[in-house]
C-alpha cells in the first residue's frame, strides 16, 4: 500500500486546517451557504434529508486493516454505527454533524486518509479494479498509476472549478471490472510491442441524464505521458465544456457536440504544447518504480496449486462449496485466492456494514489477507490475498459475522444507491426495492440457476446506482407524488460496455418486483441453456420478448 511521507502528511494536515477554518467561517456566518456549499462538497460533505453526509475517499478502493478499524470507530463515535460503501469505492456516513467534521478529518489523517474531492465539480477520487494486484488476468497493477493521478489531482490549482464533476478509472486487466467506459477518462493498461507499459485512453463516458459510452482517443499512451495527456484533456474541458446548463456540462456532452475527431485534435495539440513547456508533466521511470514499490506483491509463500484443506472442505460442506463457486476469484499467485465479502445479505440494505462487521473484517484481513481489504464498485468488500489453505477458516469467520452470503455476481448482489431513504435529490426509494427483490430471489438454488446477472437501482436520473449499465436496471421516478420504477435492459459496464434500453412505462412500487421476475422468467424460458447468460440472451433476442412479457396488453 502507498504510505505517506513527510510531505504527504503535511498536505493532509494543512488540508484539515483549511477545511476546519472554512467550517468555522461558515458557522460564524462569514460564509453564506452559497459560498460554502462548493467548499464543503469539495470535502465530501453533503446536506441530505436527515443530516449532513460525509463521503470518505478510499483511493482506488484499497484499505489496510488499521484504516478500516478507523472507519468503524468514526461510524460508531460520530454516526449511527454503520457506513455505506458506494459505487465509487468510497464510504459514506449518513448522520454527521458539521461541527464534528474537522475532528473526523483529524482521525482520518492519522491513518493517511481524507475526504478531499469526493464531491464537487473537480477531479474525483480515482477508482480501479478491486482485484488489482491479485487478479490472474492482470497485465499490471493499476494502483501505482491511480496513486500518481490521485496526487496530481489533489487541489489542482487549475482544475478545481470545472464545469462539472470529473471521474477517472483505471483497469489493469482486459476484463474491465472498473467500468472505465462510463467514466470521464477511462484508462486501460496495455503492453506495447517491446513489453513497455502504456494506456488505451477513453474519454467522455458517463451515466446520469444522458448516458454515453466513452470514445477511445488513444490506442497506446506511454506511461510517462499520463499526466501530460490528462492535463491536456482537463484543460480543453475546463475551457470549452458547457457552463450554461448543468445537465450539459459533463465532458461527454463536449465530446458529443464537438465531435470526437475535432476534440481529439484539440487534445493532441494541447498535449504537444504542454509537453514542450512543462517537463515536470512527464513521469520519470524512477518515480513510477518508487510508487510501484509500495504496491509490490506481499510476501507470498510458494504453495502447491492445490490445497488439501480447501478440497476437503469443498467436499464436506455444501455451503462452503457455494461460497467458493461465487465469491472466490482466481489469483495470479499459485495457492492463493481473492475472496469477495458480499455486503448484500438477503433483505438488508446493499453496501452497508456495521462498525462491528468492519472490525471483524479488519481482523480477518490482518490475519489471513496480508492486512489488505478492497472496496468494489459493486459495493462489496474483497480480501485480495488469501491462502487456499485458509479459505475454510476465513469462511467460518465470515459466517460467524453474518458476512458469508454466497451471491457475488448473482441476482441478489444488487447495486443500489441510497435513494429517497437518505438522498435529498432522490425521486424514489432504492433500498426497499433492492430488499424486496433480494427476498423474492432468496432461494440459493434459484439464484444459481439464473446465473450471472447484474441488477442495479438508482433513485433518480443521476444514476449513482449505475442502472444504465445494469443487465437489468431500475430507475426510480416520481409521478403525481407516487414512486414509479422504469426498467432498462441490456446494459453492462464491462469491456463490452453498453447502455441499457428503457423497455416501456414504469411500474409502481407494488408492481416492480413482479416485473423483474417476469423479465427473469422470460430469460429462463428463452435461453439456449444454462451457459447463455442473461446479457448474452438479451443481445441475441433483443428487447421484444421481454417487452411482450412485461406489457402483454400492448403486444396483443
Amino acid at each position: 500500500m502507498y504510505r505517506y511521507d513527510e510531505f504527504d502528511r503535511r498536505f493532509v494536515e494543512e488540508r484539515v486546517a483549511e477545511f476546519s477554518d472554512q467550517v468555522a467561517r461558515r458557522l460564524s456566518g462569514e460564509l453564506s451557504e452559497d459560498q460554502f456549499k462548493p467548499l464543503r462538497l469539495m470535502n465530501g460533505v453533503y446536506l441530505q434529508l436527515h443530516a449532513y453526509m460525509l463521503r470518505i475517499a478510499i483511493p482506488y478502493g484499497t484499505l489496510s486493516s488499521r484504516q478500516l478499524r478507523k472507519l468503524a470507530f468514526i461510524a460508531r463515535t460520530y454516526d449511527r454505527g454503520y457506513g455505506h460503501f458506494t459505487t465509487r469505492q468510497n464510504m459514506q456516513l449518513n448522520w454527521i454533524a458539521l461541527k464534528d467534521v474537522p475532528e473526523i478529518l483529524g482521525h482520518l489523517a492519522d491513518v493517511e486518509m481524507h475526504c478531499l474531492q469526493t464531491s464537487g465539480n473537480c477531479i474525483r477520487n480515482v477508482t480501479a479494479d478491486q482485484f488489482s494486484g491479485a487478479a490472474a488476468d492482470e497485465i499490471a497493477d493499476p494502483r501505482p498509476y491511480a496513486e500518481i493521478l490521485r496526487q496530481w489531482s489533489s487541489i489542482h490549482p487549475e482544475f478545481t472549478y470545472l464545469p462539472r464533476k470529473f471521474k477517472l478509472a483505471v483497469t489493469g486487466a482486459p476484463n474491465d471490472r472498473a467500468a472505465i467506459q462510463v467514466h470521464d477518462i477511462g484508462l486501460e493498461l496495455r503492453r506495447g510491442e517491446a513489453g513497455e507499459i502504456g494506456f488505451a485512453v477513453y474519454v467522455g463516458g458517463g451515466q446520469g441524464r444522458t448516458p454515453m459510452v466513452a470514445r477511445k482517443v488513444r490506442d497506446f499512451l506511454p506511461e510517462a505521458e499520463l499526466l501530460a495527456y490528462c492535463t491536456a484533456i482537463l484543460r480543453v474541458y475546463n475551457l470549452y465544456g458547457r457552463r450554461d446548463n448543468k445537465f450539459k456540462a459533463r465532458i461527454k456532452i463536449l465530446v458529443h457536440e464537438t465531435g470526437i475527431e475535432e476534440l481529439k485534435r484539440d487534445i493532441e495539440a494541447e498535449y504537444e504544447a504542454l509537453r514542450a513547456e512543462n517537463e515536470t508533466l512527464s513521469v520519470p521511470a524512477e518515480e513510477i518504480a518508487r510508487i510501484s514499490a509500495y504496491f509490490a506483491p506481499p510476501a507470498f509463500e510458494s504453495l502447491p496449486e492445490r490445497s488439501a484443506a480447501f478440497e476437503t472442505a469443498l467436499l464436506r460442506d455444501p455451503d462452503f462449496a457455494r461460497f467458493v463457486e461465487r465469491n472466490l476469484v482466481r489469483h495470479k499467485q499459485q495457492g492463493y485466492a481473492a475472496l469477495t465479502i458480499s455486503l448484500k445479505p438477503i433483505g438488508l440494505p446493499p453496501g452497508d456494514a456495521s462498525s462491528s462487521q468492519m472490525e471483524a473484517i479488519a481482523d480477518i484481513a490482518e490475519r489471513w489477507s496480508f492486512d489488505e481489504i478492497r472496496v468494489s464498485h459493486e459495493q462489496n468488500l474483497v480480501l485480495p490475498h488469501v491462502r487456499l489453505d485458509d479459505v475454510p477458516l476465513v469462511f467460518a469467520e465470515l459466517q460467524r459475522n453474518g458476512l458469508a452470503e454466497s451471491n457475488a455476481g448473482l441476482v441478489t448482489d444488487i447495486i443500489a444507491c441510497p435513494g429517497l431513504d437518505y438522498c435529498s435529490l432522490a425521486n424514489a426509494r432504492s433500498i426497499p426495492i433492492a430488499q424486496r427483490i433480494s427476498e423474492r430471489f432468496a432461494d440459493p438454488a434459484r439464484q444459481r440457476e439464473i446465473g450471472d446477472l447484474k441488477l442495479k437501482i438508482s433513485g433518480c436520473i443521476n444514476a449513482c446506482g449505475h442502472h444504465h449499465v445494469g443487465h437489468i436496471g431500475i430507475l426510480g421516478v416520481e409521478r403525481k407524488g407516487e414512486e414509479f420504477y422504469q426498467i432498462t435492459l441490456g446494459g453492462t459496464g464491462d469491456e463490452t460496455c453498453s447502455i441499457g434500453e428503457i423497455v416501456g412505462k414504469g411500474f409502481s412500487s407494488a408492481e416492480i418486483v413482479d416485473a423483474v421476475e417476469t423479465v427473469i422468467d422470460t430469460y429462463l424460458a428463452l435461453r439456449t441453456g444454462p451457459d447463455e447468460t442473461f446479457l448474452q440472451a438479451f443481445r441475441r433476442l433483443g428487447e421484444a420478448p421481454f417487452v411482450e412479457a412485461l406489457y402483454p396488453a400492448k403486444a396483443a
Partner: protein
Amino acid sequence: MAIFRNGTVLDHDSWTVVAAGAPVPAEGDIIIALADFIAQRDALLGRVGPVGVAVEAGEELDDIVGDLPRLVLVALRFPKYTDGRSYSKARLLRERHRYGGELRAVGDVLHDQIPLMLRCGFDSLEVTHEPTLRALREGRVRGVTVHYQTSAREGREAAPNPARRWLRAS
C-alpha cells in the same frame, strides 16, 4: 473595492475601467473591454498611457496574444467563483505566451480561491467581498501551502524533494 497586490491591500488603484463602448480618455491607465480593444487596437496601442485589456470568461485570448508585450495589464474575469475558465487562461498567458505584465483577477474573487489564483499566475486581485478583504489584511488567506503540481509560479516555489519532481511548497 480594493486591489490586493504583492501581499498588500491597496485602497487606491491607478487603473480606470472604461465602460464598454464609452470614449477612451486621453490620459491615465485604462482597462478596456476586449471587444473595444479589438475595434480600436491601433489607436489604443499608439496612446501614451498604459493600456490593459479585460477578458471575459467566455472570450478567447487569440486576439491579444500578438499584443501581449504592449499590454501592461490583463484582467481575467470570474463571473462566479465557481466558473474556473480563467484559471486555465491565466496559466496559458503565463506559461505558454510568457506574459510578464500584471495579471488581475476580477469579478467574484473570494478567500478560498485566492491561493489557486496566485498559483495560476495572477499577481493582482480586485476584491469587493468584505470578509475576504479582512482576511487578506490579517494575513489569514493561506490555503494549503504544499502542492502536488508545479504552477505558473515556477522559480518562486520551493521543490522540497527532487526525487518527487513536481512537488512544490509556497
